[in-house]
Each structure stands twice: as C-alpha cells, then as structure tokens.
C-alpha cells in the first residue's frame, strides 16, 4: 500500500476507534470489543474502497454494506460520521431515547443500507442485493461483515449455499475472527472451525487477512475483485478490543461499556496513538 494512504488510514482508524469509545461510554451500554476489532476493515472500506456518497447516501450506484454482526453498530456509526454522512456529535447520543443512532443499525440512518442485528440475517440480505445487481447488470459491489460467533447461525450457511449457487462474485463476506463470543472462547462455546474449509466447501473463494494491517487488508480486497463466478469470503484474524490495552482479547468487553475512569484511559491511549501517527 502507498505509504501516504496507509498513514491516512491509520490516523482515520484511530479516530473511528475514539468515536466507538465515546459512543459506548455515553450510551452506558453497547459492544466495544467487536467494534474495535472491525475498525480497520470499515475504515479501509469507507475511506479507500467503496464508492459511497456522503451527500447523497441513497445514490443508486453506490456500493452496499450490510453489518451482519449488527451489535457492533458503534464501529459503523463512527465510520459513517467520520466519513461525513452525519455529525460526529451524534455519537454522543448513541442508544439514547429519541436519538438517531439506534442500538443496532437502522436503515433510516444516513449511510446505513440495511437494518441488522439479529445474527445470521444480514448475509442473506447482502445476497439479495448482490443478486439484484446481477439481474440489472449494475456494477456496484456488496460487502458484509459477520462475526465468527455469528456463523453458528444456520441461516449463514443457507446464504452461503445461495451465494455460490448464483455465482455472486460481486459479494464479499468478511468473517471477523476475533475468537471470542459472549459466553467465552468460540472454540469452547460451539466451535465454528475450520472456518476457511467450511466456506471453501460451500463453493466460496476464501482469502485470509490480518485485520489490523492495511497492507494485508488492501491485498485481500484487491484479490476479491479478481474473482469470477464465486462469492468471496475474507476470514480476518482480528483482536477483540484492538487499540485499547485493557480491552484486547478480553471477552468481558464484548458487551460492556467503560466507566468514567476506564473511558479516560481508553481515550488517552487512543489519543496518544493518534498524536504519534500525526507527528511522524
């Protein structure tokens, strides 16, 4: 990846993470761990990859994004706000009564292409969008992000069969393999492994990616574009809670908001990282 772009994305991802922490802290609830693990991927998609139009969020030719792991809405909202779809001030009222930003993605929010949050459903909707583009000969791509725990849902595999059957090569499904779900390690709760082999067996082209390295991210999404007649699964190895020391790889941060002290610490860590990036 071009060094300038890489620096820009790293700075942007840091701001996205700050927005996630701010949103979840002010909401006093929400899911910081899995939001932080997809922050770099969403930053890449919205700042370097997808054709999106913050001034015209419903532009018909835009690329589509469905957050199948909808509980990590803070990551999507922070990304959209930083990209200019709405003010970053909205993040402060995440989950509040009367607020625009609902606990899970809602289609009425500018830039949100589909309501989601009930696990397993987003990938089916993404399949429908991709099929729709195929039918009409539209050039837009459809991206969706699933959790590694989410793929325990049977509907995911119904959709996996469908996407391969209809050769949806305009569909990219990212599986966020941070290894943790609410009840613990995914291996202990209900192992979805081997994830790569499963998607291959369902007829998908599978790419493995380091979720926190923009070189790896760019390489994976570029490879995805070269694939014909097959949907693409990107299995990203990620760190739950990435970027905030005490949240990293700690399952208790799946669905807990930081208290004031923890918020200050998380914020100062991310601000320090941001300052270092901006200084160099």
């Amino acid at each position, binding site marked *: 990846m071009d060094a300038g772009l890489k620096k820009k994305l790293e700075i942007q991802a840091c701001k996205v993470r700050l927005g996630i922490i701010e949103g979840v802290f002010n909401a006093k609830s929400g899911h910081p761990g899995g939001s932080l693990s997809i922050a770099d991927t969403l930053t890449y998609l919205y700042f370097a990859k997808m054709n999106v139009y913050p001034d015209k969020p419903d532009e018909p030719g835009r690329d589509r994004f469905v957050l199948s792991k909808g509980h990590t809405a803070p990551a999507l909202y922070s990304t959209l706000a930083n990209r200019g779809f709405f003010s970053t001030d909205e993040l402060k009222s995440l989950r509040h009564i009367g607020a625009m930003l609902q606990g899970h993605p809602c289609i009425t929010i500018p830039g949100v292409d589909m309501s989601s949050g009930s696990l397993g459903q987003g990938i089916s909707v993404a*399949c429908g969008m991709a099929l729709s583009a195929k039918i009409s000969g539209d050039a837009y791509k459809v991206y969706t992000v699933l959790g590694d725990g989410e793929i325990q849902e049977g*509907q995911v595999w119904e959709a996996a069969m469908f996407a391969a059957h209809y050769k949806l090569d305009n569909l990219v499904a990212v599986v966020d393999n941070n290894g943790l779900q609410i009840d613990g390690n995914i291996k202990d709760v209900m192992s979805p492994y081997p994830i790569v082999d499963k998607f291959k067996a369902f007829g998908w082209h599978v790419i493995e990616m380091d979720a926190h390295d923009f070189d790896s991210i760019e390489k994976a999404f570029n490879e995805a574009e070269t694939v014909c007649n097959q949907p693409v699964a990107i299995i990203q190895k990620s760190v739950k809670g990435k970027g905030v020391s005490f949240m990293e790889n700690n399952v208790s941060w799946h669905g807990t908001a930081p208290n004031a002290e923890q918020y200050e610490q998380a914020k100062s860590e991310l601000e320090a990282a941001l300052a270092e990036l901006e200084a160099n």
Partner: protein
Amino acid sequence: MADVKKIATRESYGNALAELGDKYDNLYVLDADLAAATKTGIFKKKFPERHFDCGIAEANMMGVAAGLAATGKIPFASTFAMFAAGRAFEQVRNSIGYPHLNVKIGATHAGISVGEDGATHQCNEDIALMRTIPGMVIINPADDVEAKAAVEAAILHEGPVYMRFGRLAVPVFNDPATYKFELGKGIKLADGEDIAIIATGLMVNEAIEAEKQLRANGIKATVINIHTIKPIDEDIIVEAAKKTGLVLTVEEHSVIGGLGSAVADVLAAKCPTKLIKIGVNDEFGHSGPAVELLKQFGLSADNIVKTATEAVKAK
C-alpha cells in the same frame, strides 16, 4: 352448485403473477423448492429469468427478498404459510417488517384445508403472527377473482404485504366484470338486522350460503367479506355491529389472534357488542380430505347457520 367454477386461490396467485409479469417488469419471484405447489411455476415458465429458487431455506429466502427490495425490485417470496409466517417469522419481522421493505409474501397452503398432509403443514396461526408486525398488510382473498385482484393491489402498495392463499379448489363467486378490490375496505354482501356474519378467505362463500339458508328460516343476516385483515375496515364492522347487536366471525384460522380477535379489538374499543367466533379452536388439525376436515372443524355453512340461529334466539 355443480356448475359453479372452482379454482384454488394458490392457482389464482400463480396465474396473476404470470399475467402481471408483463405489466410490471420489476416483479421477481422467489421460491423455496415449492414452485409446483405454490403455482409460481406458472410464472417461472413464462419468465424463467425472473424466478429464483432458494432451495429449502425459507429464512434465507426472506433475507434475499429484503435485499432485492432494498435495491428497488418487487420480490414475491413464495412458500407454504407454515414456513413463510411460522419458520421465517423472525426474518419477516426483522429483515422485512422493521426496515419496512417492499416485499410481498405469497403464503399458500394456509389453514386446515391443506388436508391429508396433516397438522405439521396446516397453518392456523399465520394471521395472528403477521398481525403483530407493525406496518404489515395482510390480505386473505376469498376466491379466484379476489385473489388475482389482491396480487395487483399488493404490487401497487408500497411496503410489506402478506397474502394468504389456499390449496383447495373453491367456488368463484365474484364477478370479474364488476368486482373491485380496495385495500383495507370490507365488502358488504348481504344486509340484515338480526346478526352480522363477518368472514374472511374461504369462509366467505360459506357465509354467503349460510345467509341464504338463514333467510329461508326467517333470520336476516348482514354478511361482510373482510379480505384485508390489516389494516382492518373498522367502519364497516362498527356499522354492522350497531345495526345487528350481534356479531359472528368466521375464519379458517385459529380463533386466537385472527379475524375474530381483530374484530374483537375493534368492537371492544368502539362498539362493545356480543361476539361469537367460528374458527379452529385451540387445537391442532389432523389428516383427512379437506372438505371433510372443514366440516369436522365447524368451518361450514351448516355450522354457521346452526351457530347463528342459536345466537339470534338467545338475543
């Protein structure tokens, strides 16, 4: 009755899709390995490139329909009522209802008249389930003419619509030359002051037959066809209740949560009136020929006459 034409409303559904496919080029049909039974196979034959089989995976089919609708298509997701409203309830609620997407659900093989397949496939709960989803329109047509009109009305309505069709061939009593379908409007088929019989779907024809017998016995009944269960025509219900002071609902659905409950809600709020419900009581169905099952479960003109006569006498 021998010369009355009989057509199953699922057949009407398939024929209507095939006919309307020319007029609405944005119409697409999804199936879950039941195109032959839901009769969307008729559409598939004419428009193979606009028909997509999803295999035996109804949950995914509802999501795919949502995705098609979110990108401007008008998808008809077709399967049996048991799987459309039952198995895929949560997908219909969260992926279609909550984002209020323009998906049309064609649910065939509804009710006890599925017949020999028995209880696992006799869906008597779908109206109750769909009624609870905000913004969902529910249409339960009574015959071929009404069913075909309902399909076009569903296309013209922006938002999710659940349409309920039957497997059993039933008499065509509406005249296609004069019939007019208005979404959300009930149709008064007879006007009498002793009792109001409010029916839906396949039970409308039974109510019409019952009214003739009641009239011969000196009981004058109002008969109303409620084809749109949500939003329901409150005015026509209140007017009939005020006129007769006695309401009888008839439906091929559980007495819990269906037409009877919807009418009860209207009456309780706007015009408290004695209400009797004919429907499938709180029990599962079983195998048997459809016509015999309908009789056995009291879903017949004879039982409407009997129930109405007793109720009028007790007034």
